[in-house]
């Protein structure tokens, strides 16, 4: 799960009204019917920031599930620069001896 401020595209000093109106805007832009995954992410971020207490709790105690090693692994794989797999790499991946 990414940083909720980043998901909603909000600055760290956003207040209740800013969070709410941004959430509504994104809900209209990415309705649950048409964009279920995007909406789920928006909603999760909104729940973390929706009022002052939530924001303070998030700042103090949250973030543990913002970054997990899992997600890091995911992103190093996804954004890795290599896409053109060589024949030797194919052999290595498949665990076939030779070459």
């Amino acid at each position, binding site marked *: 799960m990414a940083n909720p401020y980043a998901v909603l595209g909000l600055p*760290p000093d956003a207040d209740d009204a800013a969070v709410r109106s941004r959430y509504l805007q994104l809900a209209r832009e990415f309705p649950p019917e048409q964009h279920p995954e995007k909406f789920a992410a928006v909603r999760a971020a909104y729940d973390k920031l929706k009022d002052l207490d939530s924001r303070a709790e998030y700042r103090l105690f949250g973030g543990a599930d913002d970054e997990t090693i899992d997600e890091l692994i995911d992103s190093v794989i996804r954004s*890795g620069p290599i896409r*053109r797999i060589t024949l030797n790499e194919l052999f290595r991946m498949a665990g076939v001896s030779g070459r």
Partner: protein
Amino acid sequence: MARKRPTAVVPRITVQSVEAELKKTEYSKALSLAARLVESEPSDSHLACYTRTLTLCVDGYLRQGKVKSATETIRLAELFAQSHASQRPAVAATLARCGEFDKALGLADVPATRMHIADLCMRRNRADGAPTELKADFAIVQAAFRDYEAGRDDMVRDALGKLGLTSSFLSWKLLLRGLQAYAVNDISRAIENWQRLPADGLAAQLAAPLRCRIDPDFRRSLPANRATEFDRATENVFSGGLAGELREIQTHTGRDQDLTPIWKPVASLLPKLRAVQPSCVPRLASALYHLIVRQGRPADLESYRRQFPSPHDDPKFDRLRALACESTGEDDFAVEYWIAYEQWLATTPAGWPPDLLARARAIVLQRIGRLIEDLNIADQAPAELRRAMAKMLGEPLEPSNFGNPDDYYRKSLVLAPDRSEAACLLFDRMMRSQRWAAAERVATDFLAQQPDELDLLERLMDALREQGRSVERLAIAKRAAAVNPMDAEIEHELIQAYLATARWYLFQGDTDSCERILVEAGPMREVRNPAAFGSLRAILARCRKQPAEAEVLESQLLERPGLGPAAALYLSVLGQLARLKPAQRKPAEQRLRNTLANAQPTASEALGLLTAIAEMDFERMDFRGRATLDKKILAMVERSVNSDANESEFEFVLRTLMNRKNHKTVSTMAARLATRFPKSPVFPLFELQASVLKSPGRRPTGTMLGKLSLARRLAEACDRPDRSEILDAIKKIQAALDPFGGRFLFGGPFGRDPYDGDDD
């Protein structure tokens, strides 16, 4: 009937038994079994089985480096194929894969054999010994791969165009075209090509890991372990090895695991990560920060500091230490670190909007207060337990010296005057130490800011009730009911407040105001507590010198089924408190004496009386003869055990007694009821609860543990709707019998990890 003699059982050889040996890599055994299978019946399936066994054995021996055995097996295969034409293609394939090209072609010159020859050439990276026409295509494919790897896709295309339908390298053409598509993210085209790869060829084997990533159907067809292996392999190639190192770190994340081994891979990973994906460095730092919170030790923090700068929000790692101490139960250290962290927050660090900063400080201060309260509870533990703990820890337990939790709650409230939690905590502390007026002030101050906060309105009602300030209490109850008219509990409080206020006016001699309050309460509320309201109305009539009306009211009340005893009690007590003349009170008191002398009261009569006296306790109604009356009531309730009531009525009675802490009566009655209703888990449970609470801290006896297991057995067998609540209660008692309190560990097939899920 004649019995057959048992015959010796000869294990029948089947294809399955051969497969089983192969699985165990018992190759020679598998071969001999398969040979016997063919001997016994040379059916097609048996022949195929033998061929398959030969093939797998050759592969297996080669893998094990047993060249001689492999060569022998190949010879065996050749011989076999010569006598069985149907098996020639399969054996030829094996020969081809072993490099015996000529023999293979000699046995069966079919496209499949040639494909296997081509595959071996690709694997060996040379084509010596292969037929000439294969050599030419081999050169084309080799060149195409070089072009592909250099990104010259046009040249690849031209080269592959030369490979026709009959080429032995057709599968390599598909593999390469799939790779090209994959490189430009044309996933469907890649899948289309790879789907056509012959399953027993090398190209299919090489494409499998990538195909597993992009082709869901293919992935589903694989065993889960195989798919995971492929994932590992591709991940490493894709991330340039980063994923593997991250996985290595991840294997050490988990409950109770030591983090020490992660720092070496972290150190080796960091420079690469900085070079390739610098944006991941702070993310790794954040992940490790939280890992230390969950499972770290002080040394881990040092390792962390060597590798990473301090986080913006926790420059001195006070918060990290505080959270880590909380998770290991070292609350006293946690308090110290939180205090330090709050002090840092108080220096208005950059990057915190003012409102968020104030709120964060308020939350931390409240948390400190809570922790100190918990510490103090440990300090108040029984002396015996404290001695035992001191012995375990090797030092005496000192009361905490972090100051008074009240102060932290107050400071928290100053920073966040609209947060009700701190106010409630503060209020509850005041009430526990019976500082009613101080508690009232906390509530009033908060309500001045947030007039509709129900948590505080309800608490304020309690404080006012304890102080006997009924009129104000009623005003607050009305306010609460206006905020949430739906709330049944508030409605109940409101009714009690009306009653208390009406009584208060009556005892002051202000009969008009008493009447006014009763009218205001209205008939809808009166029916909710007929005994209390009815008796109040009757006494009011007596005070107003309207004896006839009082008589009517009284007799109406006393005649209502089940209400009699409670009404008698109310009439007698209210008469006394309203200072009626002895003569006026005499009939009521006589009635109460008669009620209490009833040798065979019913359970519902007992319950009515109990409820009434409990209500009087709660409302702090004090009167002469209170203690004796209580004894007599308990004696009468005890007698009701013989009455003809059902299980649930008795449960009510016992529950009410438990709430009033009449443990002795409960244990006597429960013991009797347990024999009367042997299937109910509730009565042994009551008996046990009462005996635990009668003498807390006593070591559990065998009888008690026996009762506990009896109750559990009965509860597990019963089908009551509150079954799980009963089991919960049993667990709580179990915990109470355990001198160190009930700490639960959650397990599974797997259970919830107590260190997880704390963050939300």
